[in-house]
């Protein structure tokens, strides 16, 4: 069983985002980086499947990105992936989903992956396109937003999440591509020996030029903060003052009833 996991390195969303000069995306200065949350579920599921299958499975973790992406590939190795592949592309953060998908599909074509796991979306772009586009380009079946995966005798049963917590149960056979949704599993914390081992692991580094790259399908501009509620109040200060200010507001709105005493 030959498994591919596609991972992206994204900034910590609690950081401060400032537009870059072109206004097309954020400036990277001062941001902290981590594995895209949705991709961590993909890595965990791939590693679990490998563990279930014993010796016969191999998991490749692929990331497209600038040099910093190497850290995230090593994290995937520390979680249990066997091989790390870095498509070294300083312009990756600016590329649209179509382009990223063309690069992944270009890499995967002819390498005989039975199963491809991706996150259902990235935390920063949130387009939810790349996984499905890769599958379409490779001519694979795909299921989006899986929250359960079970492998038995050459076929898999998955659950795909809908609105309101409803789920479809589906059965399918490889080769397929699955996009992963939180709730699928609990990604492991790598052990210290595995972290050390992953630091020494050799990664395959491919240049952007060596993989196929389509031209972009969209242009991004005017990257800006979301609009806060114009009528909203922001309160800051020491907690006791804050608490009494908030209490005054809640009381004025009638949310603090004096009847019935303390519950």
């Amino acid at each position, binding site marked *: 069983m030959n498994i591919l996991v596609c991972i992206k390195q994204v900034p910590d969303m609690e950081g401060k985002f400032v537009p870059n000069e072109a206004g097309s995306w954020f400036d990277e200065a001062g941001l902290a980086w981590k594995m895209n949350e949705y991709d961590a579920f993909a890595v965990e599921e791939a590693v679990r499947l490998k563990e279930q299958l014993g010796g016969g499975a191999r998991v490749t973790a692929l990331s497209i990105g600038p040099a910093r992406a190497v850290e995230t590939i090593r994290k995937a190795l520390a979680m249990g992936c066997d091989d790390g592949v870095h498509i070294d592309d300083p312009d990756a953060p600016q590329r649209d989903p179509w382009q990223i998908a063309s690069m992944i599909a270009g890499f995967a074509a002819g390498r005989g992956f039975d199963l491809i796991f991706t996150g259902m979306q990235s935390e920063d772009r949130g387009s939810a396109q790349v996984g499905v586009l890769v599958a379409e380009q490779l001519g694979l079946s795909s299921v989006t937003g899986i929250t359960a995966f079970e492998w038995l005798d050459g076929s898999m049963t998955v659950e795909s999440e809908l609105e309101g917590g409803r789920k479809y149960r589906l059965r399918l056979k490889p080769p397929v591509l699955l996009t992963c949704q939180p709730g699928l599993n609990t990604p492991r914390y790598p052990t210290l020996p595995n972290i050390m081992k992953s630091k020494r692991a050799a990664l395959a580094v491919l240049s952007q030029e060596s993989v196929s790259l389509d031209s972009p399908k969209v242009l991004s501009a005017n990257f*800006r903060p979301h609009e806060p509620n114009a009528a909203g109040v922001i309160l800051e200060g020491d907690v006791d003052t804050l608490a*009494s200010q908030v209490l005054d507001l809640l009381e004025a709105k009638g949310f603090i009833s004096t009847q019935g005493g303390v519950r």
Partner: protein
Amino acid sequence: MKLLLVGEVRDGRITTETAELFGFAARLKAEVSMALVGNVGEFPAFSGRLYRANGGNEYDATFHKRLVLDAVERERPDAVVFLHSSLGWDIAPRVAFAMQAAQVSGVVGLDDGGYVVESCNGKMRRTVRPLTSRAVLTIQPGAFAPVATEGTPELIAIEAEPDSAIEFLGCIQPERGIDLTRAGVIVSAGRGLGSADRVELVRALADALGGEVGASRPVVDAGWLERARQVGSSGQSVSPSLYVACGISGAIQHLAGMKGSGFVLAVNTDRDAPITSVADVLAVADLAEFLPALTAAIRTRR
């Protein structure tokens, strides 16, 4: 401008969000047609062509894709518009790939010929412009007000072959048991809690306010609270008169479930968190300190 809208059917009825597709089309003053999969007795009222197919599995992406592409072939629309829903994000990229067209996901607004989308979990926005003559769009549920439409569509039946590669085993309903939809006050726990034991701080505030405890999805995924307490697009939709969001960033899927709240108090260390788009009051504070202080203040004053 010509739009092909992709309506949605659930439990034999057209979903209420489908009316938002018409709302979007009205904003663009577009001529519309619609494609729809599913067995329904009633159709949306509009004048235009409605392409529909019966049969296929309830879940069958390939079947949906073929129906939409067939309608695209006949209508030649400038854009195909889906909701950004489990159906939309699943089918839209398949259609975009077949059309070799640009896709813009999660449209929340219009901006000078471009489409406004959210980025960075809702903290930022940007304007995206398709570079292809035809585009595929998914619009964020709740972003475009539904409009009342009238007319009788011309029904056009489409035959499509079901996909045999994926076997449909059935639909699982969510566990319920806790009904938050009627609660007057909800205090919700977010990942900003940091650990399961802090759920007690949220519970204490909920008690002091006489309300129920809710949760964001990561809190439920981590097992800190029961799944039945999840608020959001994949949980419950609530509309209390007071909603307190503790350590919740305010991702669009969470907001979708609590936007109908009367008054929103948010407690967050990040003053730029997207929850500020709906918060009436944001207390910028560490909840570990602030929640006990507020709970104590309420108990003292009463």
